[in-house]
């Protein structure tokens, strides 16, 4: 019965996640811990599996759209993968209550970021690292015409990705919110390119820590299977109905829900 409940919630998480452009981990981890009483370490491990699934599932369409900047994705993945390893090592020593507090804090940050207006500001110059690695590319503009773009602040982006990788492994999230912040905020990539590139990196980052948790024995099929299959199904449906939906209503409801969850996670972390 509880497994079916988890499956249904995971479908909803995948559905809402794909409409709002966020991962299902922000919904599934709090549900597993607060509603079902599962230890946060098991919840994080199961959530990472679902992140790998949704990232790989969505990759097919992103690759076809030619929006992913594979060079940027690979180069920045060096930062996220080693960040994920660091996060995995930290999680092996850190107290569960600290994880609840960090998770609650990250949810508050995500809520603030949901109010951020993403602006498509193009970099005027190409960073020397970008020139060396040929990171600049082309993407369709508002009228569908291909337009070239530069890549700025590459070292800052790489450092930011290391931090995103740590949080991903610690909290079982894709940390897409941090990745797109670095890519379209600091590195000045076009918004669509940064979203598609972030999706590539989310899967690779999650694999580094999901693989470690898997062989460590923290991934239990009883939790991971309904979560991964549910989120995959929900995101598949969500991607098909999103063009007919008004995300603003869902976004407002989700912000209220996320605020309550953030408060509960912080309370649990503080032992209140």
């Amino acid at each position, binding site marked *: *019965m*509880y*497994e*079916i409940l*988890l499956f249904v919630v995971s479908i909803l998480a995948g559905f809402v996640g794909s409409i709002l452009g966020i991962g299902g981990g922000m919904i599934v981890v709090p549900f*597993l811990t607060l509603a*079902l*009483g*599962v*230890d946060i*370490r*098991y919840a994080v491990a199961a959530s990472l*599996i679902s992140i*790998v*699934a949704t990232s*790989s*599932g969505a*990759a*097919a369409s992103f*690759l*076809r759209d*030619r929006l992913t900047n*594979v*060079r940027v994705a*690979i*180069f920045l*993945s*060096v930062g996220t*993968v*080693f960040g*994920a*390893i660091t996060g*995995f*090592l930290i999680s*092996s020593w850190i107290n*569960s209550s600290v994880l609840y507090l960090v998770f609650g804090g990250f949810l508050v940050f995500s809520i603030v970021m949901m109010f951020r207006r993403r602006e498509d500001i193009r970099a005027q110059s190409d960073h020397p690292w970008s020139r*060396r*690695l040929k990171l600049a590319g082309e993407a369709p503009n508002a009228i569908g015409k291909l337009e070239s773009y530069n890549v700025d602040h590459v070292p800052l982006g790489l450092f930011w990705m290391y931090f995103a990788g740590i949080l991903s492994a610690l909290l079982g999230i894709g940390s897409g919110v941090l990745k797109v912040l670095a890519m379209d905020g600091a590195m000045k990539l076009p918004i669509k390119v940064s979203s598609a590139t972030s999706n590539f990196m989310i*899967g*690779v980052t999650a*694999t*580094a*820590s*999901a*693989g*470690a948790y*898997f*062989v*460590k*024995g*923290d*991934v239990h*099929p*009883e*939790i*991971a*299977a309904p979560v*991964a*299959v549910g989120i*995959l199904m929900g995101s598949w449906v969500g991607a098909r109905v999103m063009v007919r939906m008004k995300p603003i209503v869902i976004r407002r409801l989700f912000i209220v829900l996320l605020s309550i969850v953030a408060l509960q996670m912080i309370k649990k972390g503080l032992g209140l």
Partner: protein
Amino acid sequence: MKQNGSIEVATAKVLKFGVLIAGALLLLGWLTQIRFSENVFLSFQSYDSSNFVGSLQEAWSSGQWGVLVSYLGLAVLISLPMVRVIMTGRVFLRDKEYLMVASVALVVIGLILGVSLGFGFDH
């Protein structure tokens, strides 16, 4: 990357097919294990560092093929992004883009290191 369209399409197909296979294995394994009458999550309320190899051996010896199928699905899923990175690396290697090949190699080393560390913690 020059003329990488066909490899992108091939990568997209591998990922799509891989996710379908992994999802089907996970669903099949899970459906055979569902216990409606009890709350399976009670046993996960406190953290107990488990043993991955031991869990596999136990499932094998007790004939719990549903658990084994689930683990197979998980393994397929986890390997997909690695396959994606390696397929991308092949393109860079073909185009003699050695800085990007080095980046790919670092990512792959990181992924292998991650799994190896997990084994180090497997009690």
